């Protein structure tokens, strides 16, 4: 039946979340992030200062990459197997 054009299901939310986390995880530290000034060494800014948005973003990217590395392997494998089996 016709689905309303912006009807979300929880499954599509999970798909979008997996895609976003994968996108953050593939940002390579030294090949890419340092080149555009988002590297790890550039985030230790002023100590008494409140970290700005850029520093917070860089911290977020780095922590997502560190934390989600291993679970992403498992989740992606499960997704690959399921998509192969069920299309």
């Amino acid at each position, binding site marked *: 039946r016709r689905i*309303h054009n912006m009807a979300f299901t929880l499954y599509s*939310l999970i798909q979008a979340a997996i895609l976003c986390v994968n996108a953050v995880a593939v940002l390579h530290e030294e090949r890419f992030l340092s080149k555009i000034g988002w590297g790890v060494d550039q985030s230790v800014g002023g100590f*008494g200062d*409140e970290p700005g948005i850029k520093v*917070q973003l860089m911290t*977020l990217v780095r922590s997502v990459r560190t934390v989600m590395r291993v679970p992403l392997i498992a989740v992606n494998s499960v997704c690959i197997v399921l998509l192969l089996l069920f299309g």
Partner: protein
Amino acid sequence: MDLPHHGYRATAKPRARAAPPTADSVLFDDTSSGGAPAMNSQAYYTPGYNMAAPTNDMQGGVGVNNLFTDPMANAAMMYGSSLANQGKDMVNKEISRFMSMNKLKYFFAVDTRYVLKKLMILMFPYTHQDWEVRYHRDTPLPPRQDVNAPDLYIPTMAFITYILLAGMALGIQKRFSPEVLGLCASTALVWVIIEVLVMLLSLYLLTVHSDLSTFDLIAYSGYKYVGMIFTMLCGLLFGSDGYYVALAWSSCALMFFIVRSLKMKILTSLSSDSMGTASSAKPHLRLYITVATALFQPIIIYWLTSHLIRRAFHHLHHTVRTTQTEPLSTHMIRVPRVRYGDIFCIISPSLVNPGFYLSTFDKA
């Protein structure tokens, strides 16, 4: 085989009785440590077990065969109950790793008076004077004692009522099916999740150290369902004009409510740098967050209700005639007007249900 289970039961029961009185004395008057502990805390066991447990307890664990002449059945019953206790403890431990149940209980400690006042504030917030959340020795007061405290009861009930109303609106247009109902529910849920995630992300990026927890944000996001229900009801009852008037009214009320509530928490929260070197961009950015959250509400109300209501206008207030090219209009399709009794029958379960739920708390 009986002895270890007797021992387990004997230790499990005093432990279960000792825990509740110390924890939530502010939230609930605990009625479970009185006569029949099995009634309240283990309400999800089978009723047969429910009746057997107090009598077994009161006999002190000596094998009583009051109910079962067969000692094997009695032993099996006690074994099963100990297994169920273990399962319950394990499930509780796993769940409390993700979200603390005490924090969740705080949001459901409501009473009838609070719900009525809060609904009034949500629909007409312009006369409410004091928007400050009151504290009691560093912990926020539960919603029973503070009308400004966020709760999760109203959003949950409003969400369920919204789904029921959506089903009814679709039924009026004759395009109801159970899958569409589930789709509507999950769409609304996904929008709430997206909004909460965006709010969390923006609060983290701007290092706003407010005391807004995730549940607080879910609560404030869920208050828009009250506006949605009001808008949909007016749209169904009064047609297209009523829909737009109610949409404008509930949007303004909700925007005012959100701005006044979040202003206290976001704009005046202590940043990590509370000395004089706060950059001038920060208060502006916090204001942007508050205003953006407020502006998001009418958009999402319109988005989630218009597709349900729009076609219902024709079905409610007009009859569909056949085209002019068929002079022999033997079949003139007449869609019946909505009967207001139908609307009442659909809405009343969701009104009665909270009444029962609240009355169990009120008698404490």
